[in-house]
């Protein structure tokens, strides 16, 4: 089954839908028109650039360029994860904990998948490595951000409970256990829900993409299942690392709760 290619006119026609939306927004005075159009313009520019970069990457198949691109993705994800936290760790820790956790989790899971299950030639072939890293990283980022956000905001809210335990002589691990467990549950909720609903409520984007490009549905399902396992593994590993490191950082070796190590609340 050949891929039906789109020409630029097809895309322009689809963009009309957006203009209709913007027109409705102006007519109903929703104030969304400007934001919608700017977001759409950003999307077009960003995707266009990424398309060109990927084309270059796929043409060269260089391990160094691939690694550099992957690192840039992780660094952007780190910034995004930090921005999603209301009470983040002060100083470099705010960026470092989430980013390091994501780097470790996404790198390990992606390399594991590339070297043992998918096995492209060479194993770092960017045509496989970059899209897979992207999917794993995107979900791991959500997990890490949710986990850290829940950890710090709960610690602030539950200060009295945590300090009551510390004052009774409970070690910091025990005193923060219910907070850290809650943060991990929150972090993993989206991926658990996604696995439960996949196929019933929505067809996953990657599977849909493969089917549209002519792949046999059963093969597409196998790929999607593999990816979901990788995503779940990456999210769990990343969130666990980030939450444990965060819990370590908001306490000290004399088992004190150190909320002074959180940055001031924004906005």
């Amino acid at each position, binding site marked *: 089954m050949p891929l039906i290619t789109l020409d630029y006119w097809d895309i322009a026609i689809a963009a009309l839908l957006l203009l209709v939306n913007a027109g409705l927004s102006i007519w109903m005075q929703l104030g969304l028109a400007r934001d919608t159009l700017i977001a759409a313009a950003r999307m077009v520019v960003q995707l266009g650039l990424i398309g060109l970069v990927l084309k270059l990457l796929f043409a060269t198949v260089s391990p160094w360029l691939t690694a550099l691109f992957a690192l840039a993705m992780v660094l952007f994800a780190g910034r995004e994860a930090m921005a999603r936290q209301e009470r983040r760790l002060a100083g470099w820790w705010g960026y470092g904990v989430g980013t390091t956790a994501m780097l470790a989790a996404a790198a390990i899971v992606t390399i594991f998948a590339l070297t043992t299950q998918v096995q492209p030639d060479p194993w770092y072939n960017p045509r496989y490595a970059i899209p897979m890293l992207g999917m794993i990283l995107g979900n791991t980022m959500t997990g890490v951000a949710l986990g850290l956000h829940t950890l710090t905001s709960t610690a602030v809210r539950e200060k009295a409970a945590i*300090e*009551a*335990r510390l*004052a*009774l002589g409970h070690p910091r691990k025990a005193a923060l256990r219910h907070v850290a467990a809650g943060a991990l549950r929150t972090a993993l909720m989206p991926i658990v829900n996604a696995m439960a609903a996949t196929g019933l409520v929505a067809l996953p984007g990657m599977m849909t993409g493969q089917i549209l490009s002519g792949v046999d549905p059963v093969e597409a399902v196998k790929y999607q299942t593999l990816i979901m396992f990788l995503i779940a593994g990456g999210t769990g590993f990343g969130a666990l690392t980030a939450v444990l490191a965060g819990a370590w950082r908001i306490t000290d*070796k*004399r*088992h*004190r709760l150190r909320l002074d190590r959180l940055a001031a609340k924004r906005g």
Partner: protein
Amino acid sequence: MTSDGGPLLTVRGLTRAGIDIPDFDLAAGEAMAVLGPSGSGKSLFLRALADLDENEGDIQLGREARDAMGAPDWRRRVTYVAAESGWWAETVAPHYADWNAAAPLATRLGLTRETGDWQISRLSTGERQRLALVRALIQMPDVLLLDEPTSGLDGETEQAVEEILVERLAGGAAILFSTHDEDQASRLAKRCLRFAGGGKAEIVSCR
């Protein structure tokens, strides 16, 4: 606990941001009241002794230095009970290693054995305060650091708390407690640590 007649608690050079504390000793069986207006540093002082905030000082329990002891061990023996109690489970009993062992003490403070099944969210402030005190008392610490232990309790329960504290003193414990009630201070203690403005404190005789 010391058997050689030396002080139970020795405090030298205790410094933390916001307060200025003179050196003092506390003997087994001795209580000292901590007085001063709200925000003058009473809680900061008690928290520093429990090592719950960053502080420095040469603090000893008997002959053992605080810094040579793990912080959880220190706090089991020198236990701080905050004015605002904290709870981490939904009902009362899971906050105690053994609620059955805690129930007799709770009963003396006007609660019952069934209190163990109560929801934390439905407890009054006074009930929480008494239950938090019981939580610390059943661990049998050597030194109790009590932040306004009877504020908000009625006269009868206040008296019951004081009776239990006097028993603990007779048993060889030492107690530091903050209060706004000068009468309570002189009932339980001979010496008072009085905070003035600016976090500066001095030791005076109560009344």
